[in-house]
């Protein structure tokens, strides 16, 4: 059992690096200036109550949030947890991104929740605890990980403030109430603000037995509090990594080896050094960087650079890879993940079996903000400004690139213009540091072009999966064999990013996630895996293994329903007889969607339910297949059970977000490899859903007293099968490959 208590900093002063000038958020941008305009106030002393809460002399309350704000609202929801117990209003709060500290580790992302669901990278579980702690945002874990710890931090600080007031007035603490950032001595009406009490409070002994508020008393948790970062995001002042400025700033861009698995063996700096604004050309991890006086000049030169490549496989193709994956399903499995009873014998003996093989392609992340990082190397120390999902990885990569100690790195995590798992990687930070080392005293902003961002992505892996099931006379499943063939994300990611490497891929639950802990009654179960390694870098893509496995599983369940001649909703309800929590979510989605109503010609509904990252999400897609214009998803009804919730508005937004992200992939998403190179390069050939073809989304959040689940990813897995299942109703043809644009025209 991990000790989840944070270290108590009983009296510690540390420096603020930003300014509250906007009346909102400080994101530790630091003291860089451009053209005389000062971007930061002089550092101010704050009084730290603990690793999370500090009081500034201005009266503002500084909350340290060591998680990346990438639109999921984590700055706000985590502040709500603290504010509830601390008894403050969010109007008083400024957010700071802290430096690395053990207090900020994300335990849930490494170890999972107590119920065993939502485990991410659990192969690294034991190692993480003994290493520099992993401070990262991913796996839809921020609220789950912070749930107890941040409320305890708020409650503990509150009690110390109450004790300090009681000591000041020489009255019993029981006569003092805390509300709205103030302690009041109820009998006499005397008050003291938290700010005035801070120094004395920080010297109090922190109580070891704080009692958290019961749910019935919550005033902030569970409420649709307005996001703290939104005002900056409508007036252009929100600073993303790409917006870092500084005295003497240099601009760099990178050219990667176009062939997967290859390298740039030779480049001719002379071919570009006389181009406008160019300062230098340097080898970096994965390619070559060109440095200039602005991004445009750097990019012109990078595009003109004379270079040669070697290595890699010029015959590699995604078509070949998918054929290899599919063929491998006939062979031996490398790992058995679930074995309950004897599925193979039952299947062989059954007179009524159904078998189907599915495939899904590689996918790119395509965050709106192309990858970038800014590094300053000065006096043997490094400073990095970047939107990375992991403070730890940003520090490691900077230290590695500059060849200095991690203790000599100062990190500023900015807002992220999309993360989706791509920004958990180290490559763009490492490259920036490697370039910066050549220019001591000058910050270097390294920015990838959109083309490089897509082509040098760490892709959602391609996969092939086969199901075989035996049905009895009423359509109940009596035996189930689920075999997956794909690359291991944990192996690929671990080899790139983690000091201890990626392992052999055989302990990576992500390859089969969604297929374990099945809520359906499936009788005898065998779930196994055929391992592959291709020279294609694969990484965490929003919902990871669930992103393809939900399409496979929920499509096949739908096939079984139709084989049994039963309604897909009713059939699932029957199979969920032992899983009432799932059944309730499915029921809610069907209700919102008015499942079964007469939709008129060329319209149909499809349903899917999937649990991921601790939450259960069911969706019904209403589609219209117009003979002239093609397929359009008009509405998605979404029910989510995420346990106890912090902010229903950010949850609704994450449902809308996950659905549209997943729908883009379901309809259009495909990264093609031909002759060893990625074909797609930019939005014109990597099609996106836009306002015109975005569905209406209706969300209902199930009331629950269960422990919180995640919300960043769970809405992505169900949408592809919901739409594919609806398409089957209209065409009577089962689509077993994504993207759907190969099966039907898509309305754009």
């Amino acid at each position: 059992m991990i000790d989840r208590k944070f270290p108590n900093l009983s009296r510690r002063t540390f420096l603020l690096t930003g300014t509250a000038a906007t009346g909102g958020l400080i994101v530790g941008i630091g003291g860089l200036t451009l053209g005389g305009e000062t971007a930061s106030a002089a550092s101010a002393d704050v009084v730290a109550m603990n690793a999370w809460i500090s009081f500034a002399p201005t009266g503002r309350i500084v909350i340290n949030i060591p998680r990346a704000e990438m639109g999921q609202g984590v700055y706000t929801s985590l502040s709500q947890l603290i504010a509830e117990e601390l008894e403050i209003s969010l109007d008083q709060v400024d957010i700071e991104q802290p430096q690395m500290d053990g207090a900020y580790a994300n335990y849930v992302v490494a170890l999972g929740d107590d119920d065993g669901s939502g485990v991410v990278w659990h192969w690294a579980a034991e190692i993480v605890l003994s290493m520099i702690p992993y401070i990262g945002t991913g796996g839809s874990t921020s609220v789950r990980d912070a749930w107890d710890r941040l409320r305890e931090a708020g409650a503990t600080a509150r009690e110390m403030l109450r004790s300090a007031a009681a000591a000041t007035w020489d009255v019993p603490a029981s006569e003092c109430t805390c509300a709205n950032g103030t302690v009041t001595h109820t009998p006499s009406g005397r008050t003291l603000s938290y700010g005035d009490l801070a120094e004395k409070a920080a010297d109090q002994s922190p109580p070891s037995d704080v009692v958290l508020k019961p749910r019935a008393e919550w005033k902030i948790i569970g409420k649709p509090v307005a996001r703290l970062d939104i005002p900056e995001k409508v007036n252009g002042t929100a600073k993303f990594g790409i917006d870092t400025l500084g005295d003497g700033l240099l601009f760099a861009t990178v050219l990667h080896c176009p062939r997967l698995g290859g390298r740039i063996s030779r480049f001719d700096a002379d071919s570009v050094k006389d181009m406008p604004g160019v300062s230098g050309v340097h080898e970096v991890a994965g390619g070559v960087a060109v440095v200039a006086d602005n991004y445009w000049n750097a990019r012109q030169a990078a595009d003109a650079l004379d270079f040669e490549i070697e290595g890699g496989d010029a015959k590699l193709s995604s078509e070949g890879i998918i054929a290899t994956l599919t063929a491998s399903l006939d062979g031996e499995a490398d790992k058995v993940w679930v074995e309950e009873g004897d599925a193979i014998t039952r299947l062989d003996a059954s007179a009524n079996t159904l078998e189907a093989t599915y495939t899904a392609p590689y996918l790119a992340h395509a965050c709106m903000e192309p990858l970038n990082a800014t590094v300053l190397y000065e006096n043997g120390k490094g400073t990095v400004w970047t939107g990375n999902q992991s403070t730890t990885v940003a520090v490691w990569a900077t230290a590695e690139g500059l060849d200095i100690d991690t203790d000599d790195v100062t990190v500023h995590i900015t807002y992220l213009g999309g993360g989706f798992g791509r920004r958990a990687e180290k490559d763009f930070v490492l490259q920036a540091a490697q370039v910066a080392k050549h220019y001591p005293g000058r910050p270097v902003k390294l920015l990838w072009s959109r083309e490089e961002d897509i082509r040098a992505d760490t892709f959602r892996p391609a996969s092939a999966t086969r199901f075989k099931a035996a049905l009895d006379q009423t359509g109940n499943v009596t035996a189930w064999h689920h075999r997956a063939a794909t690359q291991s994300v944990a192996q690929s990611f671990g080899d790139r990013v983690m000091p201890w490497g990626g392992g052999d891929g055989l302990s990576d639950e992500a390859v089969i996630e969604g297929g374990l802990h099945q809520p359906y009654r499936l009788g005898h179960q065998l779930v196994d895996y055929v391992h592959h390694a291709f020279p294609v870098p694969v990484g965490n893509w929003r919902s990871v293994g669930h992103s393809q496995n939900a399409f496979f599983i929920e499509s096949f369940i739908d096939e079984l329903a139709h084989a049994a001649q039963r309604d897909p909703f009713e059939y699932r309800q029957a199979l969920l007889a032992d899983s009432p929590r799932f059944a309730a979510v499915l029921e809610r989605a069907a209700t919102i969607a008015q499942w079964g109503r007469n939709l008129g010609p060329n319209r149909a509904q499809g349903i899917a339910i999937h649990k991921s990252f601790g939450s259960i999400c069911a969706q019904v897609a209403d589609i219209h297949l117009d003979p002239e214009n093609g397929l359009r998803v008009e509405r998605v009804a979404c029910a989510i059970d995420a346990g106890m919730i912090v902010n229903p508005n950010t949850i609704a937004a994450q449902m809308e977000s996950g659905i549209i992200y997943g729908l883009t992939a379901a309809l259009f998403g495909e990264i093609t490899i031909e002759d060893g190179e990625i074909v797609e390069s930019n939005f014109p050939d990597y099609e996106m859903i836009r306002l015109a073809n975005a569905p209406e989304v209706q969300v209902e959040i199930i009331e629950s007293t269960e422990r919180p689940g995640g919300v960043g990813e769970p809405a992505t897995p169900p949408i592809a099968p919901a739409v594919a299942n609806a398409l089957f109703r209209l065409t009577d043809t089962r689509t077993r490959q994504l993207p759907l644009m190969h099966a039907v025209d898509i309305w754009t």
Partner: protein
Amino acid sequence: MKLRINGTEHDVDVSEDMPLLWVIRDTLGMTGTKFGCGVAACGACTVHIDGEAIRSCSFSVGGAVGADIRTIEGLADGSTLHPVQEAWIAEQVPQCGYCQSGMIMAVSALLSENPSPTDEEINSSITNVCRCGSYPRIRKAIHRVAETSNVGTSVGVETEEEAG
């Protein structure tokens, strides 16, 4: 060359064919306007040139000389937000927020020309990409602005409870 941006004259010494986006961001340090694709396919770089929504990544700076250029930083009137910005806050539109400068510039240009657009007109006019899926709220926010009185009139920002 001289550029007039948000009412202020700037003197810049750059090549005429440099895209306006990079002059704004890198030369002048005005980072509200964003880079998303560089090929006018996503709209993150949208600014107003003489009132018209233009994708600045694909517009040469030379062509902007003498024009009235407006970026997201110049949309508000001092501390009074533009009605589109007010609606964006009221509907809690942004997620990561990176696309929103361009989105707001595109929408404000549309509404100044067509204060009550139909959904079809909105669809064909607002083609910016948002990877976070804020489209449903964008549509709602556009209708919200259209339903109030003239664009140009300040709309009060709602309380926290109403914003939910």
